[in-house]
């Protein structure tokens, strides 16, 4: 318990540090939402200054930081000037869409990577392993940006898949099962690109840690004692190989919000990525800050989760 408490505190401190740092950085940034507004000739310098005062941008930094933290605790995450509304409500729908996409893709990628990696580790030196190694290396060298564009072109050409968005027009009038199917149909391509992008790294790690377990002396002695192959693989070797994989899973979880940014932009998925990009272009710092904090908390939480899992699973860590 003390260990978990310490990790939790550490994570919180990290987040506070990130928020202070990005807040200060936003302060140093030349230009803000209103200076971008000034490029519009209809807005005079006085109007911009008055608006700036009204939104509280002229108050000193610590005061604004305190106000911001209070608004984060309320769930508002500051006030978006571009959308003229609190940031929180803007975010949640986008976060849901992103999580739906990345969650599905991450789950599928692990579902494929685990058996494939284990099989590769047992089949080292055979042509099957070599082929899968070459294919995965090539896949690793293909940027997901390119994959997304190619998939999109295929969707346009074949017409089997939609060319963007999350739902068809008139989605609200469909029945419940049709709605789910419609979303799944829109999900297929972006999730496919994401899976292909994640797969090579995952399989590599699974293969490497399983290979290490298979080569260890205890595996040899267990085999010599006549433990059946299936049982040996899944009951003895997989737990022994689990530690790095748990860390990796924590990282997978941590990047749920951020892994799909480019794919969302290319494929028109209404997730956090396009919103973040628009916020940058409009210099809407409240929104940028909210996305940064949110993605950082996911990463920190992912690492924390992995730490806790490792602590539960591995007695060696508990002894320390």
């Amino acid at each position, binding site marked *: 318990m003390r260990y978990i408490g310490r990790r939790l505190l550490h994570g919180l401190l990290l987040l506070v540090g990130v928020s202070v740092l990005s807040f200060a950085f936003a302060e140093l940034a030349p230009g803000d939402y209103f200076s971008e507004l000034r490029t519009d000739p209809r807005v005079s310098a006085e109007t911009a200054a008055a608006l700036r005062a009204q939104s509280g941008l002229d108050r000193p930094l610590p005061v604004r930081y305190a106000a911001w933290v209070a608004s984060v605790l309320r769930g508002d995450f500051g006030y978006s000037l571009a959308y003229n509304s609190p940031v929180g409500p803007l975010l949640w729908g986008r976060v849901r869409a992103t999580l739906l996409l990345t969650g599905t893709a991450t789950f599928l990628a692990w579902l494929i990577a685990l058996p494939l990696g284990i099989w590769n580790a047992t089949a080292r030196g055979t042509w099957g392993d070599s082929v899968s190694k070459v294919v995965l290396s090539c896949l690793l*060298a293909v940027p997901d940006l390119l994959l997304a564009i190619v998939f999109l072109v295929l969707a*346009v050409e074949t017409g089997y898949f939609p060319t963007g968005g999350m739902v068809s027009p008139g989605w609200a009038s469909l029945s419940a099962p049709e709605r789910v199917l419609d979303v799944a149909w829109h999900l297929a391509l972006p999730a496919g690109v994401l899976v292909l992008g994640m797969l090579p790294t995952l399989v590599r790690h699974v293969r490497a840690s399983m290979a290490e377990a298979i080569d260890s002396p205890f595996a040899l002695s267990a085999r010599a004692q006549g433990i059946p192959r299936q049982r040996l693989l899944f009951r003895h070797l997989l737990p022994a190989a689990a530690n790095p994989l748990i860390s990796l899973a924590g990282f997978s979880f941590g990047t749920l919000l951020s892994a799909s940014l480019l794919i969302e932009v290319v494929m028109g998925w209404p997730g956090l990525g396009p919103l973040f990009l628009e916020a940058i272009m409009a210099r809407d710092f409240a929104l940028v800050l909210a996305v940064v904090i949110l993605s950082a908390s996911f990463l920190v939480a992912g690492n924390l989760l992995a730490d806790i899992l490792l602590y539960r699973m591995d007695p060696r860590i508990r002894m320390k």
Partner: protein
Amino acid sequence: MTTRTKIGAALVFLGILHGLAIFAGFLAPYPYAEQHREFPYLPPTRIHFLHLRPFVYGWAEGREDTMHSYPVQFLVHGRLFGVREPDVIFLLGSDAYGRDLFSRLLYGGRVSMLTGLLAAVLSLGLGLALGTAAGFHGGWLDQILMRGGELVMALPWLYLLLAVRAFLPLHITTVQAFFLLVVIIGGVGWVRPARLIRGVVLSARERGFVLAARGFGASDAYLIRRHILPLTLGVVLTQATVLIPQYILAEVALSFLGLGVGEPVPSWGNMLAEAQQYHALVAHRWMLAPGLAIIPVLLGYLLLADTLLESRNR
């Protein structure tokens, strides 16, 4: 294949690819911004041969005009090849403004690969300096640097890049944008190499010959220069092979999103952004070329990184 030949092959391969970009001014038949407004979205020019002499047909009304043929000329106007006006030779087709995609690809490779290289040099330099300082000095300096590093690592990488870019001016010249990209990508990436180098320095500090040299009264600067830095070389090299392709991809992503190098200077990222209009892309497949050009570069670096890692683990 032995490790040596593998590394050699990867180096030669990468050397050729980088050479293509470096000598873009000679290899490309046109300057990167030269527009041929009368030939938008021209498909790749077909090269024909007559008695082993290459020539191309003119282009009229959407297809090859076999009435007019132009020989491919070599070494004219300080360029490797070209054809006489009014005909054009577009090996990979042209874009919406009638600019030669092949030429832009070579020039764009210059921008993208140079960004990757310079950013890697920057982040490795920072990582080397900070990592060595943290590992060698220890104590409060170590604490500050490593805690600071954790702050940087607490953000997903691409988001961090975008956030840093968000807080910097949007409207800048292409040269400024290029250096800004290098500084952002390199400046953000110091943490991982610094942590690895710190680890090496920590163990090196306690090695017998370092302790002996210290006992003989060697200064810190001498110890670091003569005994500790050489030990970090392996980590620095493998990190370089991992970081450069990652940074090339970062440049591509940022320029693709309109936050990097902008028109008319080509980079693989902003060229891909033109290909993003998938309706145009369906009819003009060749616009995908900049995306495909990244693949061999990444493959080369991957092969190099894998081989180096394998040989270090053995």
